[in-house]
């Protein structure tokens, strides 16, 4: 068993078991809803982690792509008569294309300048979504047609639990795949030393762009999934605060750790649900928890825990 866990399929297996077994402990379908939210956010966070954790490029505007995915499945079927799944793919394509076009100039920037440029991009996307209300329903958002596959309608919290769980498994698989490949190594190389990566023949701009596009497609897919699951979309999903939330998930869980993104998403989605008992102290506690965990687990929850476990075994 232990030996099997060294392999990336070991992680996938455990994740699959968790997804499969968790519902046994659910007293009501509200838990399906929360877990599905975790899976969707984790999916987006994993993508962003490829950009931030692997390739070392920050994006404070990633919710923009999330919003594009979400509005694609809203606008496609409603205004253009495109089936949901096709709209979802078109959303991915649009996100990828936009990431490609915007990424070329943006990714030349470094550090905080990259942060503000991506932030600006995200704000622009959210602004367009809020303003063009003829298409998007404006600030109150619009409803989304249910996903229909060969006559079968995807609805109900449990159905979406399995759909998003499957999506998460696929997303995890792909992210883990990258690790031991030339592309994955190029990402990590340019993160550690851009200059050394360049002199070893890595076209740094090309790989940054690839990571940006991958992360954009992940976010777009997650956005589409959430919109289809909720049956509605609104501009908040493309907003600055959602971008920050995604980044926090990645960093809190652990930069560069695929499992970390899942844990980070789980923490940030579930915390507000748990903290409701504290009523008006909710935000105060949320802030305090974020600060304390970043101080004591500065590399993120998962890397810190695994280091702790390794230390104990040694």
């Amino acid at each position: 068993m232990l030996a099997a866990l060294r392999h990336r399929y070991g992680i996938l297996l455990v994740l699959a078991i968790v997804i499969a077994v968790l519902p046994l402990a659910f007293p009501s379908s509200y838990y399906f809803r929360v877990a599905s939210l975790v899976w969707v956010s984790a999916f987006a966070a994993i993508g962003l982690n490829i950009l931030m954790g692997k390739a070392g490029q920050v994006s404070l505007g990633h919710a923009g792509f999330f919003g594009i995915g979400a509005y694609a499945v809203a606008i496609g079927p409603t205004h253009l008569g495109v089936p949901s799944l096709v709209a979802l793919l078109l959303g991915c394509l649009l996100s990828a294309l936009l990431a490609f076009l915007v990424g070329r100039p943006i990714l030349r920037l470094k550090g905080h300048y990259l942060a503000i440029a991506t932030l600006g991009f995200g704000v622009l996307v959210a602004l367009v979504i809020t303003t063009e209300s003829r298409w998007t329903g404006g600030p109150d958002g619009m409803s989304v047609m249910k996903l229909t596959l060969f006559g079968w309608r995807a609805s109900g919290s449990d159905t979406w639990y399995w759909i998003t769980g499957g999506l998460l498994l696929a997303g995890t698989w792909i992210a883990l795949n990258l690790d031991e490949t030339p592309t994955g190594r190029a990402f990590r190389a340019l993160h550690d030393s851009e200059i050394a990566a360049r002199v070893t023949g890595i076209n740094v701009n090309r790989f940054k762009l690839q990571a940006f596009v991958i992360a954009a497609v992940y976010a777009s897919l997650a956005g589409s999934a959430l919109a289809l699951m909720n049956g509605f979309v609104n501009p908040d999903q493309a907003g600055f605060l959602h971008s920050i939330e995604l980044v926090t998930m990645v960093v809190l869980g652990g930069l560069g750790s695929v499992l970390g993104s899942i844990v980070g998403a789980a923490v940030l989605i579930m915390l507000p649900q748990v903290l409701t008992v504290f009523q008006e102290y909710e935000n105060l506690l949320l802030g305090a928890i974020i600060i304390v965990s970043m101080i004591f687990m500065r590399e993120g929850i998962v890397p810190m825990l695994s280091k702790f476990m390794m230390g104990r075994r040694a």
Partner: protein
Amino acid sequence: MTCHSHFKSLAIAAAIALPLSGLSIYSPALAQQTVKIGSVLSVTGPASFLGEPEDKTLRMYVDKINAAGGVAGKKIELVIYDDGGDANKARTFATRLIEDDKVVAMVGGSTTGTTMAMVPVFEEAQVPFISLAGAIEVVDPVRKFIFKTPHTDKMACEKIFENLKQRNFTKIAMISGTDGFGASMRAQCVKVAPTYGVQIIAEETYGPRDSDMTAQLTKIKGVAGVQAVVNPGFGQGPAIVTRNYAQLGMSATPLYQSHGVASKSFIELAGPAAEGVRLPAAALLVGDKLPDGDPQKKVVVDYKQTFEATAKQPVSTFGGHAYDGLYIMVEAMKRANSTDAKKVRDEIEKTKGFVGTGGIVTMSPTDHLGLDLSAFRMLEVKGGDWTLLPPGT
């Protein structure tokens, strides 16, 4: 992969399982003796000035009702969640109310965005939901289990345009907030303007957090022939618009605000600049100035006193909407002598002549709001307070 991935996996399993199982501690207890009414409000976030008075009102009056013996022989248990103005969160809390708290009814939904996100949940679960959101789309088209108490933004536009017509104004300018409330009302106004022979000759917008609207107002000032300016918006925006309006010396042109600013704090924030501003609002704001014969007088004066004494802040029509929603719900339960969701729904729909803070409500299978234009009063700010505008001026 390194060998410690095993622990990573364990950690994630634990991280997910523990808090979730922790949540189930709050599973329903004593469900027989109480009736659970749920609420999801924007107590924090950009719409907190809606959610906060609503939250306070609900708590205040549920205590009162319980002290008086409850409803249908049961005490009310109120479950309130704060969505922070986030529609996605509201949706999750709606599911939680239905699936986990197993509420039999819902009074809440501070904004149109959060309400629309929650509507499918209650429709599907067949639980009656009285929304506190403004936009007309909540009850148009009519959905079986969805009701609302505030006047629609369309009605606000109509009320304003009616007044414009009386003053023979036909050319107006609009400056709207780009938040949900402002954008929705703006759209409704644009739609009904032709019916009243009103022409919108200039249009500007401002963001929900903007702190200076002189640029937009200067542009409107530069347009010839503007006879009045209408400002659909809520929050602090209209107060700043009003102040900038006076600063630019535009006060000679009448300024109309919407029911989105219907609270004394608007006058406080806008200061002397608010003098002469008109707006459509519920009777609540002018309770003590209503003639004694007014059927609403007792209700609004009582509510105002109760709210201001407990909450220590000026009364707003927003809290009033929650009051109306709660009592429409409770009275329906009383009439049904049951807390069965479907029976309660049927009784809500039969609400007739209910005197609330927002007006006199008479619902029907085709009208889940039950208010008409008469529920709105046209007010003007005079001497730092709301005054009732005599009909025909």
